[in-house]
Each structure stands twice: as structure tokens, then as C-alpha cells.
């Protein structure tokens, strides 16, 4: 193990993603995956400083309460739905914590509706739920959000494909190579088995890693459902390439 002092970023090396544990780029029954996926093979190149560096975010830019979606910031009223506490650890491929790193989260409300101009679902909006949150991982790589469990919703013009309840995550990690946008699913949901996006990942064990697990409620005795979702970002510890 390295002797990295706390708070110091670990310099990392990056391998290309393993295709079996990443989704196929073209998905049956999801037409946009065909019209937007490049036909040509990607250009193999040597990543340089532009790739092994990446954006970092000032924790001071986050306002208190951005990690709590269950309570409306302006009114203090509680959103409709089952309160959940979502915790998890963000690590790299060597198991090192990804520290002080921005996590963005968004989701549908309890009825399966997003606040977004492109959501044509006729399910009602919840005036006390924005569906968007941000948090920084702590010095051990852990994040925590309080929110409500999202509802399922139908995908337009898809032959009654309903997306299972899910929460979107956007992470940056230690470099531009570790950027990840994904979706987290809930255990035991009947819609999971036939979901076209979950099933786009060839490897069954990798699909399982998109599903959170039930954990004890960290807010007890305040009632809430506890879930945990750990995330692994690309990158392994390495000696730096560039010293000048």
C-alpha cells in the first residue's frame, strides 16, 4: 500500500474498460442507441495530462441541505413517498477511497415524474420535491443522501416498457478518465428483470452491482429505509507520468 498522506490525491493509472461489465452501446428496443452510437471504431491513443487530470470541485460551493431531497428547501415540507437514506462508498480499482469528490444525483418523484421539460409523463409533480441533490464524499470516500424512493414510469413509444425505480448518479473521481454516469436500482423490484438498460450489461455480476442493498436505517429511531450503493471508479494507484 502507498503511504499517501490523508487529503493528498492519489496519482492514478487507467486501463480501458472491460466490455463485459459495461453496457453494450446499442440496445434493442432503445432506438436512440442506434442513431447516436458511432459506426467507426474508437481511436486508440495514449492518454496524456489532459486525461489523467480532471475537474475538482470546491466543497464550499455546496449549500447545506443539498444532500437532503426529502425536505423542500424553501418550505421545509416533506416530499411524498417513502423516506430513504442512501449511503455508499466510492473507491477506485485498488479499493482506495475516492475522497472529497462531487456526487450529483437526480431522480423521479414518488409518482415517477421528473421536473424536466422533456418529461411528458402525466403523473403528478410533487411541489415539495426537486429530485436533484449533490454531496461530496468524505475523507473515507463515503457519501450520504436522504431522499424518497422514486416511482416507476413508462417510456414513451416503447411497447409499455416501464423503467424500474432508479436513481441517477454522476461522479467525477480523481481524473477525467474516472468520470462515471450511471443508474442505481432497488433490490426485489419485479421490473428489474426485464429492464432494457440493466440488461444491456452482459456480465450478470456487473448487473448486480447496479442494485443497492438493504442496510440498517442510519437515522434510527427516525423512521427511514436504509440502502447502500458502493461505486467503483476507473483508476489504480500509479507513479505519475509527468514531472517537469
Amino acid at each position: 500500500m502507498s503511504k499517501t498522506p490523508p487529503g493528498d490525491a492519489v496519482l492514478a493509472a487507467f486501463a480501458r474498460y472491460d466490455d463485459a461489465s459495461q453496457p453494450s452501446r446499442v440496445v434493442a428496443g432503445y432506438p436512440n442507441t442506434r442513431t447516436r452510437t458511432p459506426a467507426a471504431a474508437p481511436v486508440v491513443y495514449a492518454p496524456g495530462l489532459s486525461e489523467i487530470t480532471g475537474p475538482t470541485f470546491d466543497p464550499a460551493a455546496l449549500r447545506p441541505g443539498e444532500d437532503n431531497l426529502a425536505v423542500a428547501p424553501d418550505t421545509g415540507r416533506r416530499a411524498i413517498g417513502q423516506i430513504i437514506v442512501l449511503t455508499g462508498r466510492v473507491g477506485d480499482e485498488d479499493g482506495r477511497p475516492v475522497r472529497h469528490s462531487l456526487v450529483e444525483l437526480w431522480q423521479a418523484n414518488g409518482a415517477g415524474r421528473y421536473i424536466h421539460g422533456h418529461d411528458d409523463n402525466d403523473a403528478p409533480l410533487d411541489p415539495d420535491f426537486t429530485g436533484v441533490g449533490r454531496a461530496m464524499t468524505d475523507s473515507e470516500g463515503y457519501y450520504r443522501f436522504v431522499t424518497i424512493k422514486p416511482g416507476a414510469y413508462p417510456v414513451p413509444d416503447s411497447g409499455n416498457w416501464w423503467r424500474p425505480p432508479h436513481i441517477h448518479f454522476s461522479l467525477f473521481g480523481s481524473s477525467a478518465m474516472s468520470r462515471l454516469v450511471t443508474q442505481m436500482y432497488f433490490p426485489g423490484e419485479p421490473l428489474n428483470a426485464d429492464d432494457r438498460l440493466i440488461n444491456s450489461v452482459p456480465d450478470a455480476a456487473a448487473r448486480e452491482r447496479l442494485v443497492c442493498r438493504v442496510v440498517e436505517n442510519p437515522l434510527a429511531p427516525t423512521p427511514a429505509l436504509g440502502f447502500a450503493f458502493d461505486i467503483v471508479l476507473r483508476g489504480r494507484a500509479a507513479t505519475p507520468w509527468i514531472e517537469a
Partner: protein
Amino acid sequence: MKHRPVPPPTPSQTIGPFFPPHLIPPGANDLTSRAPGAPPAAGEIVLLSGRIIGEGGKPAVNALIEIWQADAAGRFDHPADRRNTPVDRNFAFWGRARTDGEGGYRFRTIKPGSVDGASAPHISVTILGSGLMRRLVTRMYFPDATLNESDPLLRSLDEARRRRLIARRKSPRGGEGEELALVFDIVLRGEGETPFLDD
């Protein structure tokens, strides 16, 4: 302490059509300062615009485009850039924008320096959107940059594909002063497809 094998990276999933506008605040596409009204970054200002286009010339509406680049001196504000030269802490280095109804996007930034004296000045581009199960990554290069001739990535492409990574100058317009106006269209698939990088 428990030692368990670490699984491979978590699978990507599409960003979908509902990325919250709240996460693209005003100024997210302006890298020339850290915040609206904050001191300006050094360097030549670049007004970058373009369209993201899918198969058949159809605009990629509601896609997310993120850019990452060095400052005017070719430095990054990141621990992996261990050089002793100064970093422009007024520069934002990163920004994001959402494409409009025509697939259009725009950024205000500065022209980066070469990061190592060998690779040509460039902007790293990430595209996320509905239908993209994994992100797409490419680079935008600058027209008339001497180092374009020797840039390893550009040199690895044939002439037609190489040209697609180099932005073009917008026809000169009045009132834009010294700002460099560039256009970089990104074709996700089909005629004139943009070269994307292995990820």
C-alpha cells in the same frame, strides 16, 4: 481490516433525457472566470459553438457536453500536473452545457497552451445523452496551430478524419473584438462522423 477483491468499475448507464437543468447553472458554460463577476482568466478568449448531430443529420437535442482543458500556459489545476509553473486560478478549466432544440451548444473559454510542448493545444470533450449507454470522448483542436502537424493523436488519423477534430473559424463578424469565434460540430454517427477516442 477486511481484504476483498475489488470488482471492476461500476457499469455506466445512460444519462437519459432528464438531467436536471439545476445542475447546469448560468455560467456553467463560461470558463473564463471561476464565477460570474470573478476576476478573469488570462489568455485569448474563445467563443466556441457547434451542433451535435446524430444519424441522418438529426440534431442531438438535450444532450450534455462537458469540456476540460489546460489554462493559457498549458497548466492544469490538478495534483497529477506536478510542474512548478504557475496555475491560473481565475480559470475554470471545466464547464458543461446542454444542447438546444437544434443540437446547438456554446462555451466561452480561453485558448489553452500546449500541455507538454509536443501535443497541440486542444479541448477534451465528453458527450452524454439519451441513447449513449457510455459517454463519448473526443478532442477539439484549433485551426492554424503549428503543433497540429506534430500532434501524436492528429498524426494517427487520415486527413479526412483529422480535419474533423479541428474547429473552424466562424466568418468574421463585427463587434467581437479580439475574441476568437470557432465552430466545432460533432457528428455522432453517419456522414462526416467525428472520430471518438477509445475509453
